């Protein structure tokens, strides 16, 4: 025992000496692991941390702004787009960012699997101080697609002999000092950056998967900036006088992906009944600790132009749910579960644990559907099981978390999710000609005023047909220590603006 306490005392003395020498880099903690350094995999980390840049960026309000391109314009027919590169843009290895390097990068991304491969690109060429993208058909959302992290432009020295990315040599205000995948990355201010110099010269990023551990790192003062707090920790963190908590609604919706081709859900009345049976407010209040996150329609208020204020909200109405089910021919069976033509209304509700809140939400939905006489058997698996079930048609219902800012214009996600044949995270066994036509029309319409009524109509169709049943919206909570200032929250999670954070006086 004597020895035991002796050891603890020795450790304590060492620890005190160590804390006396304050480490000065900005310590950032988030849940994202750096799975592989290929931009298609972890490009978002390098974009958010301002190591690498895309041609186009976005401000926190969702407006497109210049990134590596200082300006852009399209030809009259909408087929030729010219992106003029920012003067003096230089990679961290000292070489200039040239139009031909950017053109090579875009061509490579277009052949890959990211969203940019869905753009009808015919050719990408360098022309003077600009990169010219030629399209095979007009596509107004092109600049928005160039915000996506898979399109970050890396220096030729990033690539190894096999053509694979081996180092991250970008052109942003910070350069990678050391990278220890999957959990650690150290950055330092780049001497090549011509814009405003970052106020804090070094950044240390640590990935911590456990939400509770992240909260503890913020509370102990060990971390300066912590991303993605669990709802249960937020109230406690708000009470801490040393911390600032910022919360933004992000364009991510948790929804029930239903197989509209299955005998259970092919009738729109059944889909509406399920929507009526959901207690979204209860789920949001208890699991997400914020009743305002109940998804009364697919897109949250923060997604300007896509939230339709006068749309009748999706709310809980159990009698209406029961009436709709009866109308669709489902009658209560001996065990209380509805049945029709001898088939019980019983199916598998598949979800996954990549987001910790999904399994508890699924079990809440299970209990709520049971009240309407529907038996959902919750199964928690790997995120790939839902696309696999979509592909082979075995999926009945899945609870998924869908991000609408993969491209900052929600059209990018809509176009993929509700196309004929559906998609991994969008519709299954459902297609709507009017919606498809609207989406194609929006893709070629640049004028926001002309697009607004089309966007509204698209949302109305989705609200009435319910190929995906919205459950809750999402928010992002970040915590910063009061010893830093200048923290801003980016709901689109494109750029965390670390370069403008400074030590508070």
């Amino acid at each position, binding site marked *: *025992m*004597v*020895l*035991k306490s002796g*050891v603890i005392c020795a*450790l*304590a003395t060492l*620890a*005190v000496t*160590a*804390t006396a020498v304050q480490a000065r880099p900005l310590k950032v903690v988030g849940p994202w692991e750096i*799975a*592989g*350094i*290929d931009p*298609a*995999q972890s490009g978002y980390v390098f974009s958010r941390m301002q190591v690498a840049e895309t041609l186009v960026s976005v401000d926190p309000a969702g407006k497109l702004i210049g990134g590596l391109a200082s300006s852009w314009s399209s030809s009259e027919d909408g087929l030729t787009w010219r992106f003029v590169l920012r003067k003096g843009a230089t990679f961290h290895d000292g070489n200039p960012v040239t139009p031909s390097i950017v053109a090579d990068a875009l061509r490579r991304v277009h052949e*890959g*699997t990211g*969203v940019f491969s869905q753009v009808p690109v015919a050719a990408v060429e360098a022309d003077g101080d600009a990169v010219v993208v030629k399209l095979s058909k007009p596509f107004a959302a092109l600049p928005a697609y160039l915000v996506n992290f898979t399109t970050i432009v890396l220096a030729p020295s990033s690539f190894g002999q096999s053509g*694979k990315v081996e180092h991250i040599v970008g052109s942003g205000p910070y350069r990678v000092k050391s990278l*220890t*995948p*999957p*959990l*650690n990355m150290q950055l330092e201010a780049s001497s090549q950056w011509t814009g405003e110099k970052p106020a804090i010269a070094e950044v*240390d990023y*640590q*990935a*911590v*998967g*456990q939400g*509770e*551990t*992240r909260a*503890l*790192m913020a*509370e*102990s*003062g*060990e971390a300066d900036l912590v991303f993605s707090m669990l709802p249960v920790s937020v109230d406690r963190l708000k009470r801490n006088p040393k911390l600032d908590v910022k919360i933004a609604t992000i364009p991510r919706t948790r929804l029930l992906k239903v197989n509209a081709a299955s005998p259970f859900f092919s009738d729109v009345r059944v889909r509406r009944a399920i929507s009526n049976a959901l207690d979204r407010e209860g789920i949001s209040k208890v699991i997400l600790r914020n009743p305002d996150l109940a998804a009364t329609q697919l897109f949250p208020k923060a997604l300007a132009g896509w939230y339709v204020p006068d749309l009748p909200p999706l709310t809980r109405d159990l009698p209406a749910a029961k009436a709709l089910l009866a109308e669709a021919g489902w009658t209560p069976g001996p065990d209380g579960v509805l049945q029709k033509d001898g088939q019980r209304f019983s199916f598998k509700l598949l979800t*996954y644990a*990549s*987001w910790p809140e999904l399994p508890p939400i699924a079990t809440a939905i299970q209990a709520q559907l049971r009240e309407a006489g529907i038996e959902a058997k919750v199964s928690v698996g*790997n*995120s*790939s*099981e839902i*696309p*696999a079930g*979509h*592909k082979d048609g075995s999926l009945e219902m899945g609870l998924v*978390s*869908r*991000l609408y800012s*993969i491209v900052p214009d929600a059209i990018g996600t809509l176009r*993929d999710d509700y196309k004929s044949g559906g*998609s*991994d*995270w969008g519709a299954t066994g459902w297609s709507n000609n009017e919606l498809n036509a609207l989406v194609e029309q929006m893709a070629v319409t640049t004028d926001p005023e002309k697009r607004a009524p089309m966007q509204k109509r698209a949302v109305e169709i989705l609200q009435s047909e319910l190929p995906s049943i919205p459950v809750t919206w999402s928010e992002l909570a970040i915590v910063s220590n009061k010893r830093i200032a200048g923290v801003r929250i980016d709901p689109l999670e494109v750029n965390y603006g670390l370069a403008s954070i400074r030590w508070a006086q």
Partner: protein
Amino acid sequence: MGRLLLPRVLQAGLVILVVGVLCFVLVRALPGDAAMRIAAGRYGPDANITEAAENVRRELGLDRPLLVQLGGSLGQLLRLDLGHSVVTGLPITKELRIQLGATLWLAGSALVLTILIGPAVGLAAGLRSGGFADRVSLGGAVILRSLPPFVLGLLLILLFAMNLGWFPPAGYGTWRDLALPALTLALGLAAISSRVTRDSVAGVMRAPYFTFARLKGLPPAVVVRRHVLRNAAIPVIAYLGLQAIYLIEGVVVVETLFGIPGIGHALVHAVIARDVPMVQGTALVMGLLFVVITAAVDLICHWLDPRPKRA
């Protein structure tokens, strides 16, 4: 010596063969489409996984007959080439250097701490069995052993990181980051090793040679140094060897709690993402490591007790 090491070398060869085949067969026998799993592992749950999976299937040749794939995989292992992770794209040797390296640092620190704590406490308890130190250490061992590592870890975080502010609650890179996870593991291990030591010491103290040594007039300190320590150490060293193995394979919970990029964490992810080369490489290196550890334990025990053993 040679007779002691030869079986171990043969054992190592067998480990390579068995591990290579078993990992491939077991991982690929798991339900679900491997290409889909790999795509989800690579591009995350927001990506268009079906489309990505088709590219993965083409790139890795997952549509070839399974025996051809197994043959390719074993051929690579026999050339002592561990290959690349199919998820991160990094060479397995680099992955292991980082992640197994992190675990070895953690396990090593935990082992050093547990040796400082466990056997020392056990010696104090065993020298006066039934005394105060014995009873207190028994109580402590029972409490520490019955706490699951994540509870013990959280308690240590609350005390040392939140209240006292001595160590960071999580992180990786400096020795300060290693302190709490190593202590979490060390306390759990010391709970047992202190009792093993105590029983072993108490056993030696009851042995006739101990009584004889005392009767011929040797002072207690000399008896402990010459007779008790050496004899009592044999079961303790064997047990520490087992603990080292347990540490390397069993630290998943602690690694996740403290945000350490260790091999337990990596192996769980590799199995989920059906990353066969990563699972093979990890299992192989860990298997060889266990052979090395058990061989080292045998050698130390042989040195402590050189009498030839005849079974």
